[in-house]
């Protein structure tokens, strides 16, 4: 009996895990390629050989180190956290259409940002704090709105997923009212700043704002990775997950709040970037796996590569002008979303 069993298991183990790793390595290679391309391409082009031999001009060096490197790094981090957050939320809600916008991160960040844009000028703040003001306001808004959602949704003893979704819709609508009021109060200049923030751009990346953002993103990614086994079990449904030892309500809070922190940190600098969190997990499921450990790692890699490539497009399509990145991601993501909805309806 044991002989037969071990024979069968040997035949099984050789089949899957290795291929996951292989696919992830291939994806990581694609990511590295897109990072490389993004670093050397742009209004000021940089020769790889010259860069390696340290023969770049002063301008080229400045562009590479202080403009392009932080920008590409921000693109990779933002794409990664949006992908990972999207995958975690879709897993948690067991809904392929879930994305970070659903839990109020985007509307909260937008509300915080617009409040700072409109009333920030009246606040006396030290010059050193100025570059942080908008990001801090955005991340604060994201955190407050999402926490409100978690509190309201867990008011009932057991908060069902449907309940969270409905509370999310209501909260997003309420945040929308706040955004509308500030838009009404803003002058032309402020409105323009806001509009560009809403369309997203990676051009605002500097090392000073990037470093703290990086810490927050790494922190939230680590928390989400630790939950991947629980997210797998959640796929059997909430009661079954509970029967298998998963503290479902704790898991919900943990995932929603760490998503808010990571995504909030990223969008506080970039502004809103649409559809990445929705689309990336689906691509990753098709390419790599539905299991959450490889899925989260893969979503990070795919998201990073996708956003680095999108930003490259945003920069080079109309050089020296720049297309807002959300226009590019939405142009790809929205039709994909439509396809997804049609596919689900057919099933």
């Amino acid at each position, binding site marked *: 009996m044991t002989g037969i*069993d071990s024979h*069968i298991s040997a035949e099984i183990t050789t089949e899957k895990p290795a291929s996951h790793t292989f696919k992830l390595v291939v994806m990581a290679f694609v990511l590295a390629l897109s990072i490389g391309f993004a670093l050397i391409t742009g209004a000021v082009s940089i020769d790889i050989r010259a860069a390696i031999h340290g023969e770049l001009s002063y301008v080229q060096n400045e562009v590479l180190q202080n403009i392009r490197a932080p920008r590409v790094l921000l693109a990779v981090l933002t794409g990664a956290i949006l992908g990972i957050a999207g995958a975690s939320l879709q897993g948690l809600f067991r809904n392929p259409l879930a994305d970070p916008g659903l839990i109020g991160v985007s509307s909260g960040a937008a509300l915080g940002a617009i409040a700072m844009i409109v009333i920030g000028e009246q606040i006396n703040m030290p010059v050193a704090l100025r570059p942080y003001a908008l990001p801090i306001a955005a991340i604060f808004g994201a955190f407050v709105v999402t926490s409100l959602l978690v509190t309201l949704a867990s008011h009932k003893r057991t908060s069902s997923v449907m309940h969270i979704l409905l509370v999310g819709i209501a909260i997003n609508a309420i945040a929308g009212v706040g955004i509308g009021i500030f838009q009404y109060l803003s002058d032309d200049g402020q409105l323009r700043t806001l509009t560009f923030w809403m369309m997203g751009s990676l051009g605002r990346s500097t090392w000073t704002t990037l470093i703290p953002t990086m810490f927050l993103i790494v922190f939230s990614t680590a928390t989400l990775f630790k939950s991947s086994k629980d997210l797998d079990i959640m*796929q059997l449904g909430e009661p*079954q997950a509970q029967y298998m030892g998963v503290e479902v309500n704790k898991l919900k809070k943990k995932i929603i709040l760490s998503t808010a922190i990571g995504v909030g940190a990223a969008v506080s600098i970039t502004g809103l970037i649409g559809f990445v969190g929705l689309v990336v997990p689906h691509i990753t499921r098709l390419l790599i796996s539905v299991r959450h450990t490889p899925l989260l790692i893969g979503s990070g890699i795919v998201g990073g590569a996708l956003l680095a490539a999108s930003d490259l497009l945003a920069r080079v399509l109309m050089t020296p002008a720049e297309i807002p990145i959300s226009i590019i991601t939405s142009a790809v993501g929205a039709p994909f979303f439509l396809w997804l909805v049609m596919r689900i309806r057919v099933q």
Partner: protein
Amino acid sequence: MSVRLENITYKIGAQPIVRGASTLIKSGHLTVIIGPNGAGKSTLVKLICGEITPNSGAIFLNDTALSLLDLKAQARIRSVMTQSTSMAFDFTVRDILELSWSKGSFSSFQARMCGLAEKNEVRHLLYQNFRTLSGGEQQRVLFTRALLQIDEPSTSRDDQYLFLDEPTAHLDIKHELHTLQLCREYTCAGLGVVAVLHDLNLAARFADQIILMKSGEIVSQGQTTDVLTAKHLTESYETPIDVLFDAPKNRLFIYT
């Protein structure tokens, strides 16, 4: 070892769903819960498994109050198979079975997994998308998963339980018998199995102990021959039901 319920009452609003239920579920026994629709059978299972908390009364899992055990500890003691599961993503059967692995050697888990998959005739489905399976196949997969969650029972270990809510609902007659025969094998090895069943003849054939419920109350419980009487069943199901003793097969035959 046993699961003990003392005067359990559970209400939704003012409406009692389970009223004053007391019972003793012994390890090494196959306990079958029967009763008409809305009798509170599933609710009773949910109460014992800690999904919902009773308004009054106490539940003891191996002499420890259920409220003192966290979910992880409960999951080590008992495994539950719910009525059905709908998956949002394309998990394969193997993905689902491997969810039951929590600790210990992964390769020995896989050996057990393959053995049980073979027994439940889902071995050939391991790499299929769970969502594309038929209701019966899905149920066999979930049954296999539930078995995998508990350790291999042995006569020296009789502190684990398996709860099955209508495990045979979508099964054909062959797999129906097969599933319950496997449950018997496990009870012989010391596991306590509790199953909610609708088929009274299946209950008569396999149960060691029967709990008959109606309107949230346990109306009768104990040995099969004591509970499954024409009088009890006719009253509970509000339908004339007769019970015969099928001597050649040495079991009860229940018919309308």
